[in-house]
């Protein structure tokens, strides 16, 4: 009963599951938090698709951010649609959309039933891992932009980009690894079966005559292992040697080769059984290790540059007529028409009288800045307000923000493979093994040539670093998985190794350590009476603007009731106007509320003005709030690491930052995107290992230059700039634990190495004595591998439990 009561108190939106405000929409006896969610429900109900809500509770995506209605008009441009379509004909078109919002089984069901919403759609199929939707449609019934709009209407806005071509490469690589594992497993199993008589002693089990048949069959089965499944190790070893560096694949390739040649000799010349079972098992286990490590987050993109954010096409005015042209065709002097919430793709000059530009991509600061006619607008600004005209000053790739990507940092390969621990070890490992092998050979040579060769090959066989090369993929693979569970997604497992060396952490301020959604709202002016507060709450409750949402939330917390308003008007980029009884209220920017333009000193603060009948009553100031738990995180991190804060804003916040960060940390304000990059470079020149934590396109250069770049996002399905890892904002406070975990990884790997060395030592003592039998090799090899894998998995899980990451 008590539980039931509690449920009643909190009303959740039927569509998205978000907690509803007291004044929420009720439709068909169901609660909705906003109009967007209700609309989606209505569309689904009309199309008899309400099973969507039965499969999972609150499956929808919050619809408070409205979609621009003209957003997909550019898809009607022939050139762009041709690039997107997988197949096109008169009767049938095929297209694959990226849909980042796919997150549950209801999503799959709804999207695959799209044909019920429009008869032009004949087939739809979701790939959940990649978050894509493949659609077949009849082009005469529905066109591409209508299709995209239809998906946006039900809350699954497709993400459209022209350069997602590398996905296919990953796909075919993955498939090939699966097939290799399949083939290796098949050969390994059969060779084991045929070698079984050997293990038990041939004489009493089967006829001596059968042994050659078994052995030859084994050779036949070993061929695909050598020439298909294991060929990657030879290629990699060869490539490494060509660059004069010994990677871990060199001793592996050497081991495989010696195993095969020695077995051929044993079978053909000595009519013995050979070591083919060990060979097959070795390759099979290695491939499994590779598969375990390579499991990455397919749906997350770690390589986005500004092109992923910028529009594909813009509306250009050609002799007074609006025409949609691809963005790369824009030239200096072109006149562009920019709609509300559209991104300005190149540096340009304003032609319309007024406008508000949100430069969050460039500076990280989300407060819109007013611009006047003739003012310069930087590429990457988002226009807020009614349509405006601009004249292009610089082409897209020459613009201020996009020039960052011409920097040399973006052209060179970031990581050096030779830095990896395993490759550094393998250099010494290979040298020692070769020395022992040659030593054993020289020792036996005067006594018995046959035993000398025997010992030489046996050393190389037994020392093949199977367990050694398994310890790394299993340790890193497990850690990657544990990080993923804590919403910390690594681009690949090798990042862990760079993570553990970090000694300097650079934070971006806005959006990274501050949160945009919940600010501190303060009222400046005479105390408001409760009915005025009610008016403000009602005015702001219907607005989607981030600042009015924050004002609304703060009043809601105070428990102000809402009041019925009339003549409600929201002017994008300006403010809200409404009438209550006979008074006209305005809330919003200075110029809108007060009539006068704001003085420039106040531009960098978030101020919301409020007036009654054209008389200014006061204003709200909104401060960014620092993320919860930041102080504790900083305290823990500063014990053994240097910290820096870079900010694109002015230094108003310096006093508050000084309270959080320790005295010796650096704080630099007014940083342009390229300044941030240079700052990181300077630190690295002083041999610091830098971790950059940033969030926006303005951090892209710094993320790329740093040793490890982490992009912080509020929502994992939103897009982040190119980085080595993506971290959900709520998990930012766990950063210390992640770094500590990475440090543990090194200890775990070193212990695993020791274990595998002990096995090798045992094997080697047999080998140098010339006593290594096939059966001993067949036992020793899997045993060492299994114990190393078991240790790595167990140790990682225990250390994660200790850090509350599991």
């Amino acid at each position, binding site marked *: 009963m008590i539980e039931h009561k509690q449920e009643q108190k909190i009303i959740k939106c039927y569509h998205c599951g978000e907690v509803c405000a007291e004044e929420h929409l009720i439709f068909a006896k169901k609660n909705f938090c906003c109009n967007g969610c209700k609309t989606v429900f209505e569309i689904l109900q*009309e*199309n*008899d698709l309400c*099973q969507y809500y039965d*499969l999972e509770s609150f499956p929808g995506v919050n619809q408070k951010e409205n979609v621009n209605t003209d957003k997909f008009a550019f898809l009607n441009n022939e050139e762009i649609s041709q690039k997107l379509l997988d197949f096109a004909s008169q009767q049938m078109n095929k297209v694959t959309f990226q849909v980042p919002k796919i997150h549950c*089984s209801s999503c*799959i*069901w709804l999207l*695959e039933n799209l044909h*019920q*919403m*429009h*008869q032009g759609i004949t087939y739809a199929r*979701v*790939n*959940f*891992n*990649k978050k894509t939707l493949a659609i077949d449609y009849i082009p005469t019934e529905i066109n591409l932009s209508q299709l995209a709009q239809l998906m946006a209407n039900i809350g699954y806005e497709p993400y459209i980009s022209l350069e997602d071509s590398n996905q296919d490469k990953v*796909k075919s690589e*993955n*498939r090939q690894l*699966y*097939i290799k594992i*399949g*083939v290796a497993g*098949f050969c390994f*199993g*059969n060779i084991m*079966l*045929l070698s079984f008589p050997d293990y038990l002693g041939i004489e009493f089990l*089967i*006829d001596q*005559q*059968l042994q050659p*048949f078994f052995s030859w*069959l084994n050779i036949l089965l070993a061929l695909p292992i050598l020439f298909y499944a294991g060929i990657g190790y030879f290629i990699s070893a060869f490539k490494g040697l060509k660059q004069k560096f010994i990677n871990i694949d060199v001793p592996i390739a050497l081991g495989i080769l010696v195993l095969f040649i020695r077995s051929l000799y044993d079978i053909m010349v000595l009519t013995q059984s050979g070591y083919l079972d060990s060979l097959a098992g070795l390759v099979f286990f290695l491939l499994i290790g590779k598969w375990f490590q390579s499991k990455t987050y397919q749906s997350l993109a770690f390589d986005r540059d500004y092109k992923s954010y910028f529009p594909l096409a813009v509306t250009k005015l050609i002799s007074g007529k609006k025409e949609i042209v691809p963005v790369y065709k824009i030239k200096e002097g072109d006149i562009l028409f920019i709609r509300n919430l559209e991104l300005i793709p190149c540096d340009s000059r304003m032609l319309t009288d007024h406008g508000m530009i949100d430069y969050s991509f460039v500076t990280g600061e989300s407060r819109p800045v007013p611009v006047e006619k003739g003012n310069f607008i930087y590429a990457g600004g988002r226009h807020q307000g009614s349509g405006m005209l601009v004249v292009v000053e610089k082409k897209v790739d020459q613009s201020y923000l996009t020039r960052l990507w011409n920097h040399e940092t973006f052209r060179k390969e970031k990581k050096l493979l030779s830095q990896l621990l395993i490759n550094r070890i393998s250099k010494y490992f290979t040298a020692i093994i070769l020395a022992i092998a040659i030593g054993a050979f020289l020792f036996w040579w005067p006594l018995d040539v046959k035993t000398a060769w025997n010992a030489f090959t046996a050393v190389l066989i037994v020392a093949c670093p199977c367990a050694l090369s398994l310890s790394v993929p299993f340790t890193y693979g497990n850690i990657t998985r544990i990080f993923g569970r804590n919403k910390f997604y690594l681009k690949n497992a090798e990042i862990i190794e760079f993570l553990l060396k970090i000694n300097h952490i650079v934070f971006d301020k806005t959006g990274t350590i501050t949160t945009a959604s919940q600010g501190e709202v303060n009222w400046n002016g005479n105390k408001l009476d409760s009915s005025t507060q009610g008016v403000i709450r009602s005015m702001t409750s219907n607005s989607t603007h981030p600042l009015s949402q924050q004002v609304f939330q703060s009043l809601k917390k105070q428990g102000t009731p809402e009041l019925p308003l009339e003549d409600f008007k929201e002017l994008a980029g300006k403010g809200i106007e409404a009438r209550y009884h006979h008074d006209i209220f305005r809330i919003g920017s200075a110029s809108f509320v007060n009539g006068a333009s704001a003085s420039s000193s106040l531009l960098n603060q978030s101020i919301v003005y409020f007036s009654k009948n054209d008389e200014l009553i006061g204003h709200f100031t909104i401060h960014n709030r620092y993320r919860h738990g930041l102080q504790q995180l900083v305290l823990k991190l500063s014990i053994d690491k240097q910290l820096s804060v870079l900010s694109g804003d002015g230094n108003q916040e310096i006093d508050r930052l000084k309270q959080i960060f320790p005295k010796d940390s650096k704080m630099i304000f007014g940083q342009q995107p390229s300044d941030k990059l240079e700052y990181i470079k300077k630190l690295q020149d002083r041999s610091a290992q830098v971790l950059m934590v940033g969030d926006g396109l303005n951090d892209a250069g710094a993320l790329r230059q740093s040793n490890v770049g982490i992009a912080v996002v509020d929502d994992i399905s939103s897009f982040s700039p190119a980085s080595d890892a993506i971290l959900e904002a709520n998990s930012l406070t766990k950063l210390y634990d992640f770094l500590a975990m990475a440090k543990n990884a090194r200890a775990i790997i070193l212990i695993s190495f020791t274990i595998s060395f002990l096995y090798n030592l045992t094997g080697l003592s047999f080998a140098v004595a010339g006593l290594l039998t096939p059966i001993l090799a067949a036992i020793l090899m899997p045993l060492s591998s299994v114990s190393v894998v078991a240790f790595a998995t167990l140790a990682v899980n225990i250390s994660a439990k200790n850090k509350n990451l599991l």
Partner: protein
Amino acid sequence: MGVIILLIIASIVVAGSFLAAFIWAVKSGQYDDTYSPSVRVLFEDKKKKKPTVNQTQKERKGNDQ
């Protein structure tokens, strides 16, 4: 003893055909998405009471106008 040779060849042929089936499955993309098939089988095919959804929708729109 000849029967053992026969049996082993038969067993390898059987195992080989499974391997071939596996390779076909991978190549046809069955391992690309391992999540959605598991939920897709659970979706019920609703019996359509109305003739087709689009028709009723059209009728409704017609009535509105």
